[in-house]
C-alpha cells in the first residue's frame, strides 16, 4: 500500500548538469527505449537519490500501513475475516520487506532506512496517520486505501528501475486479494443491518478527506517533476492518479447506496474529469510533518518493535558477518 504525495524537494546532490554528458545521454536513451536500469548500471546521482527516497517512503508506508488494520486483527468477525485480515497485514509487512530490498540495491542499508523512519526523518503515506476507530474503518482502508495504492503501483510498475519494478510486480499479484477482500467487507456492511450501514457510512465520512489527500498535493502546487517523469521515476501526476481513482471507485461507492461527504463531487461529462472540493492542503502539510492524530503512536510502535527485538537480533548476529548490497 502506498500513497503519492511525495514532495520531491531539492536534495543536496550532484547536479544533473555536473554529470558526465555521454553517460547521461546513454542512460536517458536506455530509458527512452523502454529498457530497465539494473543496479550495476551507471546512473546519475539525482536519479539514485530520488529513487531511494521514493522506494523507501513506499516501504515505510507498507510497514506503517500494517498498523491501522492491525488494530482490528484480534477482533475480526468470523473465521473468513480473521484469516483474511491476518494475511493482509502480513502482506503489508512482506511488501515493506520487498521494497526495502529494492532500495537496498541502490546502496542504502535497511538499518539506515528504519532508523530514518523512527527518527521522523523519512516520510510515509500520510493516510496512515489517521485512526481506525471501528471495524468499518478497517474495511474502508482495506478497500479504498488499497485501491489508491494500486493506482500508484500500477503506474510505477512501468517505471525505469528494474528492482523496483520487480518488487511492484510481486506486490500487485499479492494485492489482488486485498482489494477484493476490502470491497467484499464494505459490500457486507453496506447491504447489512442498519447498524452496519451506519457504521460504514460514518467511516466513509471520516476517511474521505484523508483519501482525497492520498495522491498528494494538486499538480498546481506540486514541485516541478519534469526530469523525474523523463527518467520514469514518477510515472503519473498526482491529479491524474486521483482522477483515475475517483473514476474507478466513486461509482462503486454510490452503487452501494453510500454517500460521499463532498457536495461538489461529480464527473464533468465534457472534460471527463472529476470535480471536487479542493482538499485542505494546509492540513495535509501539518499532518505529514508530524501533527496528525496518530503520528506519535505509529512511530512509537515501530520504535517499540525495534527496541523490543534488539536482544533477539543481538543474539543472532554473527560478528564476522559482512553486509553487502543485494544484487537485484
Amino acid at each position, binding site marked *: 500500500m502506498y500513497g503519492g504525495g511525495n514532495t520531491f524537494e531539492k536534495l543536496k546532490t550532484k547536479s544533473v548538469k555536473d554529470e558526465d554528458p555521454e553517460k547521461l545521454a546513454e542512460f536517458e536513451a*536506455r530509458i527512452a527505449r523502454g529498457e530497465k536500469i539494473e543496479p550495476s548500471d551507471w546512473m546519475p546521482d539525482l536519479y539514485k537519490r530520488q529513487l531511494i527516497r521514493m522506494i523507501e517512503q513506499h516501504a515505510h508506508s507498507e510497514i506503517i500501513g500494517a498498523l491501522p488494520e492491525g488494530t482490528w486483527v484480534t477482533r475480526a468477525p468470523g473465521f473468513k475475516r480473521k484469516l483474511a485480515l491476518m494475511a493482509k497485514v502480513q502482506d503489508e509487512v512482506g511488501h515493506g520487506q*520487498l521494497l526495502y530490498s529494492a532500495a537496498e540495491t541502490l546502496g542504502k542499508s535497511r538499518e539506515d532506512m528504519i*532508523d530514518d523512519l523512527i527518527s521522523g526523518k523519512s516520510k510515509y503515506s500520510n493516510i496512515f496517520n489517521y485512526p481506525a476507530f471501528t471495524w468499518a474503518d478497517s474495511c474502508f482502508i482495506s478497500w479504498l486505501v488499497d485501491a489508491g495504492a494500486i493506482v500508484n503501483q500500477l503506474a510505477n510498475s512501468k517505471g525505469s528501475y528494474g528492482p523496483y519494478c520487480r518488487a511492484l510486480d510481486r506486490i500487485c499479484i499479492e494485492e489482488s486479494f486485498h482489494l477484493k477482500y476490502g470491497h467484499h467487507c464494505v459490500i457486507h456492511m453496506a447491504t447489512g443491518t442498519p447498524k452496519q450501514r451506519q457504521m460504514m457510512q460514518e467511516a466513509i465520512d471520516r476517511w474521505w478527506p484523508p483519501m482525497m489527500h492520498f495522491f498528494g498535493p494538486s499538480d498546481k502546487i506540486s514541485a516541478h517533476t519534469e526530469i523525474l517523469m523523463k527518467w520514469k521515476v514518477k510515472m503519473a501526476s498526482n491529479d491524474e492518479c486521483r482522477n483515475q481513482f475517483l473514476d474507478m471507485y466513486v461509482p462503486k461507492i454510490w*452503487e452501494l447506496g453510500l454517500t460521499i461527504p463532498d457536495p461538489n463531487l461529480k464527473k464533468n461529462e465534457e472534460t471527463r474529469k472529476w470535480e471536487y472540493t479542493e482538499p485542505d492542503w494546509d492540513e495535509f502539510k501539518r499532518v505529514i510533518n508530524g501533527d496528525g492524530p496518530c503520528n506519535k503512536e505509529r512511530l512509537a510502535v515501530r520504535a517499540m518493535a525495534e*527496541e523490543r527485538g534488539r536482544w533477539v537480533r543481538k543474539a543472532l548476529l*554473527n560478528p564476522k558477518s559482512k553486509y*553487502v548490497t543485494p544484487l537485484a
Partner: protein
Amino acid sequence: MKSLDPRLNRVDIYKYQQELKPKASMDQFETYEVFVRAKDGKAMQHEGIVHGPNKEMAFLFAKEQFSRRGACVDLWVALTSDLMVSPISDNEENIYDLVQLEVDDGGTTEAYEVFHLYKRGKHHQYQGSLQAKGFHDAYQNASEVFNDGKPVLNVWVIKKADLLCSTDEDRVIWSTLSEKTFRDAIAYKALDKIKKFKEEQGTGNKL
C-alpha cells in the same frame, strides 16, 4: 494515552522511545538471495532477498516471504556475497561475446551453478550445473555449455556447496498452499449481494 489497538494497550509503547540508542552501523544481518521453482518443469528463478543471521534461518524466512502464495516445489538460498556476478550488457547483446574471463589453472574442480538474465527487468533463471576449477573457469565453461545463441545479459555463478537447497522430503511443507483460498481474489465474490441490494432498493418503498 490509550490506543485504539487493544494489543498496544497491553504494552507501554512509549517507554521504548526513551530507550532508543543509536544503532551500531551495519547492526543488521547479511542478505541471502532466494531462488524458487514454482512447479516441476518451470525454471528455478531468482525472486529476491531475505536478511538473516545464517543460511538455516534465511531458508525459514525465504519460505514464508517467497512461497506463501502460488505454488512452490523447490527453494534455494545463497549468501549474496557468495554469488559472482558478470558485467551487464544491453538488451540484445550477449555478454558472453563481450566479456571473456582469464582462467588460471589451479584450484580444485567442483560443481558450479549458473544463472542467466535474458532481459533487463526480468528475473535471473537457473541454467544448470557444471564442473569447473574456479569462477572464471565456470563462466567460460558456461559460455560453451549454456550459451545457445540467445543473448544473455548477465551471468551469476555460485559454488553448489554454497547453496542451501530444499530437498524432495521438504516438498510436503507446501502441500496445503493451494488450499489457502482466503489469500486469493477469487474467494471474494459478492456480485450477487450487490445485485440483490440494488433490486431491493429499486422495489423499496418510495414515499
